[in-house]
């Protein structure tokens, strides 16, 4: 049998099939990954790429089909088997222990004996070898908490290599990185490839697929719908293959028509219990009919800005004026009051803030608006009214499936986001705060969400959009403010901005 294939593939999947109850997640997928290449797997959320990788990594067992590793059939009953076959996975969310050093994290689960000392010494030597061979240098004695996000990711990759992986699966590796850090990651991946490591890259960012991979598989509805050599394809074609129809990656906008100032801040500051200055002298003006974008690397005060503006946290100093109502440290606001003033808020993290996973979609559709009519009459929730409201939102924002009685957690990320967005926009707010409008949302839904945001802006809503996706800021915003270390470090017009200069401003290296 092997005589037919001269060089055995690093990984070969044959007819992999997997169902969860009635959901047919992966349908007869066959693919072949050559050793020493970088292969991209793209697809919308729910296309089956994560399930497929979980099968390969032994987290799920396929209902049918075979996995061949290096020309040998392999049984993947658990991640232990996968590691035994030299497969390693770098998860989107880092699995590191902050208070441990790099070395201690490295040996976690592979301590090599009852006493740590021997294992640590061996690990130190191995780490030095890995650093030499792959150009992956990290200080072994640094505490993980003190490392930058990019370095932490390097530790994750080292952890996998340390366990002897020759096949690396990376799940959305650039989600938390700046453009510069992403470039650095791709350099590392190329070095690894040159040393013979096989890499599988799961992402929804087409630009990265085009920049980093040799070959790309496109998944849709559990099937591989296309296989391309990367150099023969481009973002437009891949997007179309993923969604199954033509997608406009650019956004049409009519010129901005600014109205009155609806939200403004003066010298707004926020200091936490430990005296850390999270927001520092922020001054913002937001006018009706414009979208102001806040660009910045995660953790530079954007989340806190949204919290203060939406009334969740009170400012430590300065003042905030929303629709003529002033909030300062002596007169703190609260989210319910802000809603009454006409401010709506699509939170950054829909799962932690914007919805309750265990609630029905209909219950999620009134979160924050549950008190008073039309949902509460005579102290009782009006169940039919809530259901009808949710059904209406689902229809207007194309939330699928259209089931108000389904648990919120059973919707895909994009549909959850559409439901949250629908809830906030439906009230025709005068001011709309949007955090990470399309985080974890697939391309088809991104296009839709962007159009709805622009529609709200055209109807006179004053909008503040915070996003770590520079593309998104560049295409949505009428004005761009860059945040760094809790301060607004510059203002740029989107026409005169490019990713590189913005990236530099985001790291505090340049000012506008």
């Amino acid at each position: 049998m092997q005589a037919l294939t001269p060089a055995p593939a690093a990984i070969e999947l044959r007819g992999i099939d997997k169902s969860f109850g009635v959901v047919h997640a992966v349908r007869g997928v066959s693919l072949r990954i050559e050793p020493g290449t970088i292969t991209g797997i793209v697809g919308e959320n729910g296309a089956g790429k994560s399930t497929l990788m979980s099968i390969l990594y032994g987290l799920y067992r396929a209902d049918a089909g075979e996995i061949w590793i290096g020309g040998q059939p392999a049984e993947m009953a658990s991640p232990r088997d996968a590691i035994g076959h030299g497969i390693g996975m770098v998860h989107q969310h880092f699995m590191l222990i902050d208070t441990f050093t790099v070395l201690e994290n490295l040996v976690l689960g592979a301590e090599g004996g009852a006493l740590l000392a021997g294992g640590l010494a061996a690990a130190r030597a191995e780490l030095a070898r890995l650093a030499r061979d792959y150009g992956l240098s990290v200080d072994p004695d640094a505490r993980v908490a003190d490392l930058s996000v990019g370095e932490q990711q390097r530790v994750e990759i080292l952890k996998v290599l340390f366990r002897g992986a020759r096949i690396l699966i990376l799940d959305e590796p650039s989600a938390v990185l700046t453009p510069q850090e992403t470039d650095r990651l791709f350099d590392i991946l190329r070095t690894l490839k040159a040393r013979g490591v096989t890499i599988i890259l799961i992402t929804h960012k087409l630009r990265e697929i085009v920049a980093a991979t040799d070959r790309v598989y496109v998944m849709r509805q559990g099937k591989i719908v296309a296989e391309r050599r990367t150099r023969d394809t481009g973002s437009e074609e891949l997007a179309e293959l993923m969604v199954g129809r033509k997608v406009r990656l650019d956004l049409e906008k009519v010129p901005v028509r600014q109205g009155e100032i609806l939200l403004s801040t003066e010298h707004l500051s926020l200091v936490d219990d430990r005296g850390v200055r999270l927001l520092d002298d922020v001054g913002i003006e937001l006018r009706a009919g414009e979208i102001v974008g806040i660009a910045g690397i995660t953790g530079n005060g954007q989340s806190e800005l949204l919290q203060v503006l939406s009334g969740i946290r009170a400012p430590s100093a300065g003042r905030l004026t929303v629709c003529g109502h002033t909030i300062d440290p002596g007169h703190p606001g609260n989210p319910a009051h802000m809603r009454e003033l006409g401010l709506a808020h699509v939170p950054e993290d829909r799962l932690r803030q914007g919805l309750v996973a265990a609630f029905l979609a209909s219950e999620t559709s009134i979160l924050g608006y549950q008190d008073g009519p039309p949902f509460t009459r005579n102290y009782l929730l009006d169940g039919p009214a809530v259901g009808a409201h949710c059904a209406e939102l689902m229809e207007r924002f194309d939330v699928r499936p259209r089931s108000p009685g389904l648990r919120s957690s059973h919707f895909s990320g994009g549909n959850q986001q559409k439901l949250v967005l629908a809830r906030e926009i439906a009230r025709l707010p005068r001011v709309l705060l949007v955090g990470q409008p399309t985080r974890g949302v697939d391309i088809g839904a991104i296009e839709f969400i962007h159009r709805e945001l622009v529609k709200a802006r055209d109807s006179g809503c004053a909008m503040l959009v915070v996003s770590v996706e520079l593309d998104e800021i560049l295409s949505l915003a009428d004005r761009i403010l860059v945040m760094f270390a809790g301060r607004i470090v510059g203002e740029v017009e989107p026409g005169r901005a490019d990713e590189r200069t913005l990236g530099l401003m985001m790291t505090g290296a340049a000012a506008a």
Partner: protein
Amino acid sequence: MRAPRRSSAGPLPAWAEVALLPLVNIALAFIVVGVIVAIIGVDPFHALRLLVVGALGSWESIGYTLYYATNFTFTGLAVAVAFHAGLFNIGGEGQAYLGGLGCGLAILALDRWLPAWLMVPIAIAAAALFGAAWAAVPAWLQAWRGSHIVITTIMFNFVASALMVYLMVNVLIAPGSMTPQSRGFAPSGELPAIAGLPLNLSLALALACCVAVWVFLWHTPWGYALRTMGHNPEAAVYAGTNLRRMTMLAMCFSGALAGFVGVNELMGVHHRIVLDFQAGYGFAGIAVALMGRNHPLGVLLAALLFGALQQGGAELAFEIPTITREMVVVIQGLIILFSGALAHLPRPWLQLLFARRAS
């Protein structure tokens, strides 16, 4: 947790989830109990027959079963309401104790002047008020001071116990009495009961509480906010809920429910304030809520089961000398173990069974 190997077997049908799974759990518990009973030399089927007949065999035994179930319903609901708010109220014991003190004090103060139609509601309200107040202190400590509610509520059980002993021995004891109990209530402070049985009107109050909890949690904006806090406090803050106030509300509601044990025991049965009338019901409420999946209907069913076990177990211990009171506690413990901690043990087997039948 690792994903199940055979995750291809889909989710269970709803009826199997709410009815079949608990039944299988109880059956498993009884099998293990049967083995233990056989080991100590008793025919398990004979013991089971005694247990069932003891709990349900006559009007009298059914009356006792329902009386016990009334207490379990109150404390089970108390735990369930707090649980929906993300709060683990271990203080049902103390809140029940103080609830009894509340209604007892109200009756001792007023029963000579007020008619029953006025005395009874006032006493019930006093039970709720005292139960709520006893829960409000740990709630306040949690909401404003960050003291963990599990620790404070359990400590308050001891404080309640000491307080009651002090009050009964030194203050409320009936003049000339040798036992620490108050004077008897006047008839206006007694709840109508079935002649010769402890079963009294409190059962109706328990059923009303089930309905009230259900309406509150799923059909009012406050219940909605309370559940939001329980599932996802950050989302509750985002929605504009004041978590401190909601913590107070949830715990006061919970404490009031537990306080009704005092109504059942003192107004329904003892007709005076006594010591230790609440013994064990507060803690059993945790198991009842766990088994009833924190839903009022589930709590009611679990309370009936626990009531039946309490009554049947007493009969069993009476009939078979080798099965002691402690043995009955072991049986209860095993049922709690199988329907609480190991509740999902049979799920994969059932899933497989359903998947096989479907294909």
